[in-house]
Structures are given as structure tokens and as C-alpha cells.
């Protein structure tokens, strides 16, 4: 009897003892997964956010200069700052983790929700940019106002108010609501910069270490969360948002006004290609703004592959990124025009992007043994 109690109690201690979330032990095996997290944080995420926050700062200055003295030159400068910042944005858009939770910042939703709700002709005429300007009564922190701010709202205000630049400038000079227009512009760039700086500071003031040390596996481990975010981004934001939606993949007819940067007429392709590069660079662990490469999904898959002697998944995925890029080269710089004139090219680009969804979401996820869900439910 005593022997039995001993075994039983020993067993229970063993069982409970082992189920604590132990800190990671020293990794002696030939692949150190923490290196992936370090590379992502130090060589991709942080530099990309640094670079992006510089552009939002410049955007804010350009906005202030423009509203102080609205003319053709300051407008052009403002547009230029907007384009640079929008391109830089494509390198951070995929990172959803590391948002300071207490302020409920969802950067992507506040900075790049499109199509915008511009005026009374929009699908939701109750809350539009025009209405915000006219009433002066708006709280941009409200989730319901996400489609009246960020890059797409600036796109509308800088490029979409009228056909010619002179007419656009009139809104900021002779219009009776000119002051309100200018205030709104400043509020927008202010908020964009403010939110970005908050996220960057959050990463710099501790989250980086938290992210890097959260190794292990499970739905809440950094690697699992990042892979989930990454695939979600690829599928929803890049594939569907930038190409699939305007091409009418998810609707009975094409929707050319769903493209990114609709009003600038000719910037959507640049934004898409930039985002495609950023997505592939992340997969390969390529450092931000450099040719150097570190540990990432690609090298991890190679490591696992040598264990399983399967197909070379890294190569397949990279080839598919290339195929999508090559197909997209044929597209008109203005995706809306492309959809309206020859949508088959747009659909062909979508198809190439789609093939990588299968490789990323099925083959890669299986190989990495990542939970493709935030549900930390029990398994068998």
C-alpha cells in the first residue's frame, strides 16, 4: 500500500511539475528557433517600423507645410511624402502582433482601410470624410470611422476631391470650409504618426524582448502567432485586398473602385509589388533594407525538410512568389484601369497568388506544426 501511494504521488508530482510553462532550456540541437525570432525582431520588424515612423513624421511635416501654405508646390511635396510613407507602410502592414493592447491599436485598420467612405455616394453615407469635415464632429479613435482616415483618406483628399490640381487646391484656399479641410488633413497625419510612434515605442520598450523570449510552441508562442498573422496577411490583405477584390473574385462582377490608392490613379501596382517583396523577404528572413539574409521560415523549412526528405518547399514557395511577380509585371500601373480593360490579366495574377496560399497554409503549416488558429483548444 505504501509502495502504491508513493508511485501515485510521484506520478502526480511529475505530471503537474512538467505541465508548468517551463522557460526554454538551452538549445543544443542544430537549429535554434529563437534565432528566427531575433532575426525577425532586430533585422526586419524594428528597422521597418523605424523607417516607417520616419516617413510618417515627414508626412506630418509635409501636411503642416501644405496647410500653412496651400499651393501647387506644397501639394506636390505632400503627395510625395504620402507616396513614400505608403510604400514604407507595405513593410510593416503584416505585423499585427506587438500592438499595445491597452489602447486597442489596430494599426492596419486605422491606417489602411479601403475603399474609403468619401462622400454621400459611398456605401455608408452616414459617416464619411466629407461629413466629418463639414460637421467637425468626429472621433477618429472610433472603429466606425476607420474608413475615413489613414492613407486611403489622404488619397481622397489629395487626389480625389476634383479632377484638376487647381480645383483640389481650391478646397484648401477659397472654399468656405477651407479651414475645416486643413484641420482634417492635419488631424489625419497627426494620428497616423502618433499611432505609429506608439507601436514603435512599444516594441522598443520591452515588447522586443518579450517577443524573442516567447519561444516554445502553442497558440500563444511568438512563432505560431507570427505565422498565423503572416498567412492571414498574405491571404486577406495581399491576395484578396490588393488583387482579388477589385478583380471580382469574391463578387459576381469586378469592383475596380476597391483597389488600393484608388484616387491617385496609377499607384496601386507599385504598392502591390512593394508588399509582395516585403512578404517574400519576410519568408526568406531578408534584413530590412539590405541583401543580407537571416533565419526565417525558409531556413527553418530547409532544416525540417532535411529531416523529412520531402519536396523542397522553400524553393516551391519562392518560385511561386516569382511567378506572381512576373505575372503582375504585365499589369497596368493603375489596377482599376486594368480591371476595366482586361480583367483576365488581373485574374491571372490572382491565380498565381492563390497557388502560394496552398503552399503556405497547408504544406508549410503542416511542416512547421503551427496551429492555424488562435483557438488553444484541446486535441486528441
Amino acid at each position, binding site marked *: 500500500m505504501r509502495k502504491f501511494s508513493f508511485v501515485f504521488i510521484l506520478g502526480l508530482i511529475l505530471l503537474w511539475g512538467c505541465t508548468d510553462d517551463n522557460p526554454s532550456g538551452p538549445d543544443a540541437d542544430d537549429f535554434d528557433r529563437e534565432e528566427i525570432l531575433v532575426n525577425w525582431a532586430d533585422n526586419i520588424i524594428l528597422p521597418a517600423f523605424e523607417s516607417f515612423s520616419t516617413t510618417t513624421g515627414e508626412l506630418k511635416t509635409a501636411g503642416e507645410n501644405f496647410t500653412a501654405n496651400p499651393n501647387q508646390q506644397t501639394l506636390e511635396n505632400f503627395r510625395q511624402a504620402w507616396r513614400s510613407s505608403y510604400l514604407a507602410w507595405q513593410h510593416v502592414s503584416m505585423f499585427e502582433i506587438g500592438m499595445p493592447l491597452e489602447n486597442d491599436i489596430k494599426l492596419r485598420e486605422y491606417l489602411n482601410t479601403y475603399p474609403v467612405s468619401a462622400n454621400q455616394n459611398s456605401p455608408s453615407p452616414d459617416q464619411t470624410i466629407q461629413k466629418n469635415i463639414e460637421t467637425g464632429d468626429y472621433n477618429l479613435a472610433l472603429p466606425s470611422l476607420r474608413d475615413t482616415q489613414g492613407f486611403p483618406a489622404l488619397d481622397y483628399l489629395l487626389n480625389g476631391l476634383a479632377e484638376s490640381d487647381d480645383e483640389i487646391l481650391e478646397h484648401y484656399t477659397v472654399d468656405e470650409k477651407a479651414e475645416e479641410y486643413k484641420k482634417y488633413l492635419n488631424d489625419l497625419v497627426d494620428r497616423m504618426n502618433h499611432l505609429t510612434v506608439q507601436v514603435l515605442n512599444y516594441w522598443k520598450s520591452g515588447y522586443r524582448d518579450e517577443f524573442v523570449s516567447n519561444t516554445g510552441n502553442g497558440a500563444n508562442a511568438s512563432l505560431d502567432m507570427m505565422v498565423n498573422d503572416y498567412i492571414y496577411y498574405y491571404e486577406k490583405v495581399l491576395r484578396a485586398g490588393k488583387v482579388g477584390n477589385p478583380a471580382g*473574385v469574391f463578387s459576381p462582377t469586378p469592383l475596380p473602385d476597391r483597389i488600393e490608392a484608388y484616387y491617385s490613379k496609377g499607384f496601386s501596382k507599385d504598392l502591390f509589388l512593394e508588399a509582395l517583396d516585403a512578404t517574400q523577404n519576410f519568408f526568406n528572413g531578408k534584413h530590412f533594407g539590405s541583401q543580407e539574409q537571416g533565419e526565417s521560415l525558409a531556413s527553418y523549412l530547409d532544416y525540417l525538410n532535411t*529531416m523529412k526528405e520531402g519536396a523542397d518547399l522553400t524553393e516551391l514557395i519562392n518560385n511561386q512568389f516569382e511567378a506572381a511577380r512576373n505575372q503582375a509585371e504585365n499589369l497596368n500601373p493603375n489596377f482599376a484601369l486594368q480591371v476595366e480593360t482586361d480583367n483576365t490579366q488581373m485574374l491571372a495574377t490572382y491565380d498565381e497568388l492563390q497557388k502560394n496560399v496552398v503552399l503556405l497554409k497547408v504544406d508549410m503549416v503542416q511542416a512547421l506544426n503551427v496551429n492555424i488558429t488562435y483557438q488553444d483548444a484541446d486535441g486528441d
Partner: protein
Amino acid sequence: MSIESTIQEYFRKTANAAPLAVFRIFFGILMLISIIRFAANGWIHKLYIEPDFFFSYYGFEWVQPIGEWTYLIFIICGLSAIFVSIGYKYRVAIVVFFLSFTYIELMDKTTYLNHYYFISILSFLMIFLPAHAYYSVDAWKNESLRAQEVPAWTTDSVKLLLGIVYFYAGLAKLNSDWLFRAMPLQIWLPANYSLPILGDLLQQTWVHYAFSWAGALYDLTIPFLLLMRRTRLFAFVLVVVFHAMTRVLFPIGMFPYIMIVSALIFFGPKLHNTILDWISRFFKIQKERFDNAKSYLFSSTATRKATIGLLSLFFLAQLLIPFRYLLYPGELFWTEEGFRFSWRVMLMEKAGYANFKVVDSDSGQSFYVDNTEFLTRFQEKQMAAQPDFILEYAHHLEDHYQQKGIENPGIYVESYVALNGRRSRPYVDPKTDLTEIEPSLKHRTWILPFDDEIKGL
């Protein structure tokens, strides 16, 4: 002596009632903890209230969550577990537990787990066992119920069920993927790299094979090792170690604890009486009051015969159901025809992707569906790799788009599935209009061939 009289004799044999009573007490407590844990994790809301659509088992489409009232089902289930544990109004309590627990499981197929099924059928079995004849509130109050001895077959039936679960789980592991490719452990184990000591070992291929073979051997032999007196203690150590391992390596919830505690029933009454002594001392319960040396009697011979008859059928079904896959052609792991309810535990790493296309048959226009509009990520994941989910979802889409004004929607799916480390390959025939196919238990001809073979049971 004829076989018949041997059987007769066996069914007349009695055994000390303590093991069954201890089993009842622990079962109730563990079920209560499971329910509380489930609620505390926020899973009731996340799994049964948040989603707009729920996947039903064939024939149980009427079992649906009832909005906020779903919490009530869980409360009822938890309360009945307490009643089972203390043995108060036991028969009613265990029936209520079985019904509420099973209702919860039937609400959404997405959450299917073999061990939930195990709890359902175990609680069904317990309805017919006199687990309240000893050391229960019922027996305390009711002298005619009180009995220190119960028919031996009642305790044995719990052992038999446990034995079936283990042995069949072992049989299912006798396949080429498990034994000769160390799949899916070869995918799962390396992910535990951050465990101290074990983390590095789990990267080694030989460890994957060792775990696979040891796991199969364990499942096949453990019921017998627990049955034999000489190996019992050793077997119990194995049970604890094995389930501790699974607890550490996989997100497996309460199941390891349930199996460890259940295995206690294989021990003799001495142990169980000691446990009851401890409890008695702690709660100041007069255990002697139950020790009346009487044997439990069924209310009538007819009841006794009916119970034995029913449970015989129950066990016959348990022995046959796992083999129903033999009625279907094709690779079981690929088509999953007859996969569930068969103790096929941890056998598959299956990932899928399903992209649905809606075609307006009248105008010829078509578009793809955003699955996240209808399903949670968890549901989408389960749906993408299981054909019955895909079909049910397709019919849901048909209804949805009919309401939206498309009179004759055709629903097609482009789907890919990767199984146990193989490359992903097309799954459902993309040329099949799924609205033309009615859900049934018949062989599914619309699944593309696997083009590989997994040998074994």
C-alpha cells in the same frame, strides 16, 4: 461445466463495491473540473455562442446551441457531475449528465475529440451500474439500497470499456505511416524544442520512431498488464508516465488525468477502501455505516436481465463500430469514412485548404467565398480537411445564397489536403457541384484518389 453455466456463474459473482464507488466519486470530480476549466477558458462563448454556423453530426442536425442559454446546459452538466460524485439521486444525476454532456458534444462536430466520445459512452454505461450502492448519499439514506458487494460484472464492465479504448487505439497504430514513417509524431515532436532536456532529444529521428513503437506497444498491452495482478503496479507506473508525457507534449486537456484516475479501477478493493478511509477521516464520515456485508440486488430479475442484455449489445457495438471503415473502399485516412468513434487517436496530421466557388447557374456569373464570413478560424481549419464538413458547409452556402437571391447556386470547391507530411494534393473533385450531393453515410465518390497507400489496420 458447460459454457452456459460458466457464464451464469460469472454473472452471479459479486465483488466489493468500493472500487466502483471510488470511480464514481473521482469521475464526478474530474467532470466538474473539466466543465469549470472549459468555462474558465472562455470556450463556451468562443465555441458555441460566437460562431454563426455549427457543423452537425449526421442525423443530429436538431442539436444546436441555444444562444446565451447554452451556459445553462453547462451549468446543468456541472451540477449533475457534483450529484454523481456524492451519489445523490445518482440515477437521475448520471442520466442528466449523460444527456447534457452528449448534447454539448453534438452541438458542433468541429470540437470532436475521441476523449469526449469516451466520456459520453462511459457515462452512458454508468447509468446502468450500481455505482451509488456504496459510499453515497443515496446509500446513506436508503438502507435497502446500501450494499457492500456489487455484481462483479459491473466493475468489470468499466475495465472492459477502458480495455477496448486502449487496445483499439493500439490496433489503429499498426499502420505503415505510424510504424515505418514515424508519422505524425515526426511532425509533432520537434515542435516541442523548448522543453528542458527532452527538447533536443525530440529533434532526433530515432526518438520519433521510439515514441511511435513504444506508443503502439503501450496501447496494445496496457489493458492486460493492468488486469494481471503481478504486473499491475508496473502497469500503473506506465499509465502515469505515458499520460504525463502526452500531457507535456500535446495540448490534450483533462484527458490524461481522467485516464490515470480511471486506471485505478483495476486495483483490488483494499486500495479503494483505503482511499475511502482517507475521505472519511477528512470529512468525518462514518464509513462503517456502509459496511453491511449485503449484496446489491436489482429491483427485479427482469431489470437485471435487461441490463445485462443491453450492456452486452452496447459492448458488441463498441467492438464492431471501429471496424465499420471496412465497408468503405478507399484510404481511410484520406476519406475519413468511418474514422471517428474508433479510438484512432493522434494518427493524423492533416491540413487542408478549401476555396469555395459560387456559380449562378442562370447568369453564369461566379465568385469565390470568403470562409471567414461564415466560419471561425477553428471551424475553417476542421472543415478544410474533412469531407463531411465540406459538404455540409457547401449546403449552408447554397441556402445562404438562395436567400440572397441567387435562385440556382452551384457550389464548387477547390481544395487541397496534406496528410502526414506528404505534399498537398487536390482533395475534392472541383468539377462536382456539391449542392447535387446529399449528405449520407454512403461512400463519397466525389473525393479524388489518394494515390498512395497506408498499409495496416
